[in-house]
């Protein structure tokens, strides 16, 4: 709910500065998440099981001999159930499910649902929304349409609903192209594509018979924009220059101050 999530968007690229020396190299994270119980760096004491957890409730055990305390708290050891019947839950590290995904190696490997022909239509539409110009390539050139496929194929209700909207929209677009120009959308000239897009580019202004097409266009435009502007080419296009490690934080440059009337 607070500030930072809004102030900056997530993300990052390898720092240009040297990593501070006590930081673990990325690769070592590979030891986590394979089900082994490991003591995290910096928190090691005698063994991993005890090495981690939060300040929750903390009875002070000075009255007890330590061995006693351990016997009381060593979990599975005394439980008696055969190991094979116990839930596979390590003391630490991500389990790789939706509530606790491996953040260092994210997965988006769910099966894609759109057909090649649907993808071709979306690529053509994506390039109508974000065409190449002298500053950056087109949306399809950086794979924005593949992001649409990732999105509508994802598990979850929202994606299932939008899959229908995208599929239906693609079919609608091709039917409309056939009716107006006797060809599929991908085969139209830019002028012909423009004629259709002009009719569906803004829901509040679209005619009744174009509303469904306009809602489809709106969804695709937002997905294409996310797909495009989160790539290097897109970030460069708008001039995003952050996410680099800096030794110190400087005040804004004179050029920015001048533009804002702040000098």
């Amino acid at each position, binding site marked *: 709910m607070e500030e930072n999530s809004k102030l900056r968007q997530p993300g990052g690229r390898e720092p240009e500065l040297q990593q501070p020396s006590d930081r673990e190299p990325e690769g070592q994270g590979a030891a986590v998440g394979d089900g082994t119980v490991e003591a995290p760096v910096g928190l090691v004491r005698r063994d991993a099981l005890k090495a981690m957890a939060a300040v929750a409730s903390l009875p002070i055990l000075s009255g007890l001999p330590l061995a006693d305390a351990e016997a009381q708290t060593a979990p599975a050891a005394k439980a008696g159930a055969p190991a094979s019947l116990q839930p596979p839950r390590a003391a630490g590290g991500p389990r790789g499910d939706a509530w606790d995904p491996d953040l260092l190696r994210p997965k988006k490997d769910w099966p894609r649902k759109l057909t090649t022909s649907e993808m071709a239509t979306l690529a053509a539409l994506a390039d109508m929304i974000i065409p190449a110009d002298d500053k950056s390539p087109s949306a399809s050139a950086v794979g924005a349409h593949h992001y649409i496929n990732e999105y509508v194929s994802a598990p979850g209700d929202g994606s299932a609903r939008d899959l229908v909207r995208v599929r239906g929209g693609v079919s609608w677009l091709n039917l409309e192209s056939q009716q107006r120009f006797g060809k599929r959308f991908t085969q139209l000239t830019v002028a012909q594509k423009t004629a259709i897009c002009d009719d569906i*580019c803004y829901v509040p202004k679209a005619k009744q018979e174009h509303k469904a097409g306009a809602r489809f266009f709106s969804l695709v435009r937002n997905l294409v924009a996310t797909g495009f502007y989160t790539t290097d080419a897109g970030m460069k296009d708008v001039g995003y220059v952050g996410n680099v490690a800096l030794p110190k934080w400087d005040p804004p440059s004179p050029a920015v101050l001048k533009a804002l009337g702040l000098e």
Partner: protein
Amino acid sequence: MAAYQLAVAGLKVLVLEAGRSYDPVRETPMFKLPREAPLRGAGSREKPFGFYDATVDGGWEVPGEPYTNAPGTDFRWWRARMMGGRTNHWGRISLRMGEYDFKPKTRDGLGADWPLSYQDLAPYYDKTEMLIGVYGGDDDLENTPRSSPGVLQPPPAPRPVEMLVKKHATPLGIPVIPAHLAIMTQRQDANRLPRLLHPGNALAQRVLRQSMLQRQACFYATPCGWGCSIKANFQSTTVLLPPALATGNVDIVPNAMVREVTVGKDGLATGVNYIDKNTRQDRHVKARVVVLAASAAETARILLNSKSTQNPQGVSNSSGLVGKYLMDTVGAGLGGQIPLLENLPPYNNDGASGMHVYIPWWLYKEQIGGKLDFARGYHVEFGGGRGMPGNGSFNFLENQTEGAYGKAYKEAARRYYGSFVWFDGRGEMIPNEDSFCEIDPEVVDQWGIPVLRFHWKWSDHELKQAVHMQKTFAEIITAMGGKVNGTVQTDGSRAIARGGQIIHEVGTCRMGEDPRTSVLNPYCQSWDVKNLFVTDGAPFVSNADKNPTLSILALAWRTTDYILDQMQKREVG
């Protein structure tokens, strides 16, 4: 905090943690890109604040651990089931409560006073800030106390948007000053601070020095809410637990869901019962002293669930007040588009993740003079500018351009990117009889533990305050030459965030001078059970507009000093 303080004092401490263990050094996705994450890092039911957010097994829901709302209540409860709890991903805003905040009733007749004053807590604020590392300015405005000299780290320079807001808010009489965040802009003095914080305690000095040497200064990239593997900001898991464990006095058992506090015939706590989540077995640990810090509402839940013939209303509940006077922070927000910010030359807007400056409450005089129609103040968190493009970052363009596409869309993206600002008010809620949690008589969680049922009601003070917030934000946006997005609400119930939504819930076991009207004494010690203490937000008597965590930490330190003193005097333990 309590585990650390007790361990460095030489006591054996066992920490029971309901969630899994967690190591930010190895698990934080520093410098990962949205495009590497599913759906470009979008939030989801399982990860509401985005894929990379450092919340494990939590969020608005915890799988298998529901809570309920009484009819008419829509309270939202954010939990993180992981070592270090919500401190792994909190906003790190660390404002001190001021003099007025401890004595609100004396000042305006509403709510209740704390049994302590600002002066009682001030030394602990100083020590806590030095221990965890906080940047901030030394402005000394009304009820916005400064730290002692040398305590705070220098604040980072303001960002362009922050400077612009300052320029246009100042003539409206609204102050903009450096914020206080638990983020280090420089490395800690590992030689000086441990001696200062733990005089005469060689063990404490050794482990703290070692821990401070492990921490780097912020490098002004990567969002704090994902965690910080270089330990530049405050998380329990990077700042308090490593030195606590290094003492050799602390054992931590993860996946241990505490169910109840057990009490002996003499009325003293004997330990706790917990469910081992791995085996689903119920276990008991004995203890000389029990400290609860499971988060405010959860602590109330444990106490209320600790029922026996001896304590039919739960443990430490002779006053009947456990769960009562639940509070959150009042929240309302507004954004705007600012033409001055269009087409700027590229600049780095990242900084220390959270805000560099903020607006403290400034209308104390007007309020006490009866010129406002609500009691108690709010501060303003704000920002904007050129964030890293992520999921949905450019959705605004559709309306902004009334449907542009093609070259016009690309040009509009360049023009409007970074031209938006947002303001969020964070205000004081006055405790009331209608906001509380209790045990739901019918529902248990997957461990068989009865769950909490929430009741919630805002009073007119909070509703009017939320309207005032939006009006103020609209004024600032207009003064900046901008255009407000959306509607400025005049109906408080539309302006205000839902109960719990600001995630500052406190107050379920309030402290006081009188056992009949409070659950804990001024040292967060149970009136009923002498060897039972609470060190989370539950003891809060009121919830000032200042975000609670710094005060929770400072209070916890004070409480452990008292525990140690009482143990020495053989009063407890």
